[in-house]
């Protein structure tokens, strides 16, 4: 305990957690800036930072953004994040009834409850999972990479084919640079800046941040918030009693959905909403200003922001866009998430746990303090916001390696991201391919060299065989799900929340 307190007060964890939560809330509150974009904007700044501070900053940003998205959802009927769309259903109704402060308070404190539940699960599960990794060999690492790629089957949104295409293109991007076994140059076009390949951060910033800016060039202005209605009200005792069970439901849903690759905060929040309504004694109030209709989704999406990090930390497999960006943050620090992280950098993982715990406290403190600047920012003319974000992105990317070429590459990925959005190609499979491509190829070839070209090595290693079996299961389940959904005729109107959950949950995974 003393050691933990010493770490807390002698490292920059506390300021990083507060800064991350503040940035995340601001980013989440701006319609168009998802948690992953908020985190991607910070990535260039984490170069040169203390590693613990860097990962805490990014993790706290994810957590803050999941709450921040509820602010415009409640005040101006525009969710700041995908997962806040469920909060909008009852949050805006409460605002119309003059109860905006109550809605904001329920959202904030339900986020705290979900965050506590998520952090507890994260601490309990992550390390045991990683202990298996001490026995990893090249065959196991290859199988782990394949397992990560198999998540594409559930991350592909509406089209499995398009998800696989995006994942394959990610692998193609990862092959650019120097061959991991022979050192031969591949697709470098004699450009020395491509010898070390394309850093995943450029892909992420381009796809998420710049392509979104390109989309915003033709977006309508959003409604402005009334600052007078934006004071957070601490829930009354009666309200706490009423929202306790929905918070528990939301937390459990978030815990389960968070560890499932592809599920994410959006699916979790709508599932939690539906379940809370199913078990509520005031079912008729849902959609018309029910406190439970806010508590459940908010607890779910903040729980998810913690548990989505479990597969990323323990296995190196990001299950959501935001976890992928956090993975990028680890890579910038020279930390390889996955099996060896706990062996080689266990202290940094502990610092991350501490930091995310501080972030929960920060959410309450910052949540109250940041409301006026948040409203001020949301009410700024959109042209100014876009101009500053564009300047921030271009400046930040240059800061990575002081390379104008890399800024150009990032702009290029922004164009690619825009085209992918037009063609409905999902981003996350491509990011998975870019991040896992090197690991998959290098360990595959290394394993074959060690076994003299004998492919049976991949099944003779029990860990590899197990991971490949799970990967096959993911793929089969994903294919069956897509096949069933493809065969189902356009459904009759179902309860509104279920419609929205199915529809929005298959879109971008925050």
């Amino acid at each position, binding site marked *: 305990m003393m050691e933990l307190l010493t770490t807390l007060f002698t490292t920059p964890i506390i300021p990083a957690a507060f800064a991350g939560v503040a940035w995340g809330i601001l980013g989440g509150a701006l319609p168009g800036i998802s948690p992953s974009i908020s985190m991607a904007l910070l990535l260039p700044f984490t170069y040169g930072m203390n590693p613990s501070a860097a990962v805490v900053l990014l993790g706290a940003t994810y957590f803050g953004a999941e709450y921040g998205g509820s602010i415009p959802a409640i005040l101006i009927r*525009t969710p700041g994040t995908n997962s806040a769309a469920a909060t909008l259903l009852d949050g805006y109704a409460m605002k119309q009834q003059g109860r905006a402060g109550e809605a904001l308070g329920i959202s904030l404190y339900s986020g705290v409850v979900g965050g506590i539940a998520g952090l507890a699960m994260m601490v309990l599960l992550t390390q045991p999972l990683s202990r298996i990794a001490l026995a990893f060999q090249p065959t196991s690492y290859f199988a782990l990479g394949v397992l990560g790629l198999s998540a594409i089957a559930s991350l592909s949104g509406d089209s499995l084919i398009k998800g696989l295409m995006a994942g394959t293109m990610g692998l193609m991007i990862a092959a650019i640079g120097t061959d991991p076994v022979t050192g031969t140059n591949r697709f470098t076009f004699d450009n020395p800046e491509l010898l070390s390949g394309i850093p995943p951060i450029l892909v992420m910033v381009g796809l998420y941040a710049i392509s979104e800016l390109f989309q915003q060039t033709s977006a309508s202005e959003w409604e402005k918030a009334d600052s007078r209605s934006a004071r957070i009200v601490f829930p009354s005792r009666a309200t706490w009693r009423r929202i306790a069970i929905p918070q528990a439901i939301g937390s459990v849903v978030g815990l389960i959905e968070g560890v499932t690759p592809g599920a994410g905060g959006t699916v979790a929040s709508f599932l939690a909403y539906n379940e809370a309504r199913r078990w509520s004694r005031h079912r008729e109030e849902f959609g018309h200003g029910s406190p439970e209709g806010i508590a459940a989704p908010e607890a779910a999406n903040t729980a998810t922001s913690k548990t989505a990090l479990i597969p990323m930390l323990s296995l190196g497999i990001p299950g959501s866009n935001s976890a992928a960006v956090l993975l990028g943050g680890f890579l910038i620090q020279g930390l390889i998430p996955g099996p060896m992280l706990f062996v080689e950098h266990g202290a940094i993982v502990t610092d991350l746990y501490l930091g995310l715990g501080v972030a929960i406290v920060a959410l309450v403190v910052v949540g109250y303090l940041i409301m006026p600047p948040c409203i001020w920012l949301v009410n700024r003319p959109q042209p100014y916001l876009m101009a500053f974000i564009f300047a921030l992105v271009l400046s930040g990317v*240059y800061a990575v390696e002081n390379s104008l070429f890399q800024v150009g590459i990032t702009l290029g990925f922004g164009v690619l991201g825009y085209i992918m959005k037009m063609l409905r190609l999902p981003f996350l499979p491509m990011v998975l391919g870019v991040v896992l491509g090197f690991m998959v190829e290098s360990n595959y070839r290394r394993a074959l060299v060690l076994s003299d070209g004998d492919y049976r090595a991949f099944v003779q290693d029990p860990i590899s065989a197990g991971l490949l079996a799970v990967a096959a299961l993911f793929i089969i389940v994903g294919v069956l799900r897509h096949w069933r959904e493809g065969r189902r005729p356009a459904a009759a109107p179902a309860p509104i929340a279920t419609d929205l959950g199915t529809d929005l949950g298959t879109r971008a995974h925050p």
Partner: protein
Amino acid sequence: MLTSLTRAGARDLVCGALTLALALAYYAGAATIPQSMLADAVGPDGLPKSYAVVLGALSLMLIARALLVRQAEPASTPVLTPAQAEAREAATADVLRAAGPPGEPKRQGTPAYQARRAAGLFAVGVVYLLALPWLGYALCIAALIATTALYQGLRPSLRLGVVAVLGAAFFYLMFVRVLAIPEPAGFWPSLHL
């Protein structure tokens, strides 16, 4: 067959054609990767060629799906009274309209207009990149802020100028002074002012 394509089908057809072209180009590029004496059984070109083949196959599947698969007819809906149907439709449309995810903002104009608008912002970024080594960071970032804001519809005004200058000062302080990033200084140091 082409004229009967739905919007989604046309989009998939274009997507498939583009990715097929990419796969062919990538395979051609992989074929030029030099073989090394140190090469293992797979070689430096092995997986890149495999990726190109997989992408090509997926592209053909997407093209085939776009050309061959028809949209399913909607299932029969439960019988509602006119008032119930109208209320459900209004409520669903109302909430769906409000709950548009941030990844797909409410946008103006046709897809061609939106693409032109996006291309314009891309051009602003490219010009910034080209001008940066010559004019230096401070000047270029101020111009970027002002140009982007003007492009997004703000009118030229003193206020815009002040915001651009203050914004540039903020970014200069943050990146060059605080973070010590050696942003390009342009030709200004050569003037020996």
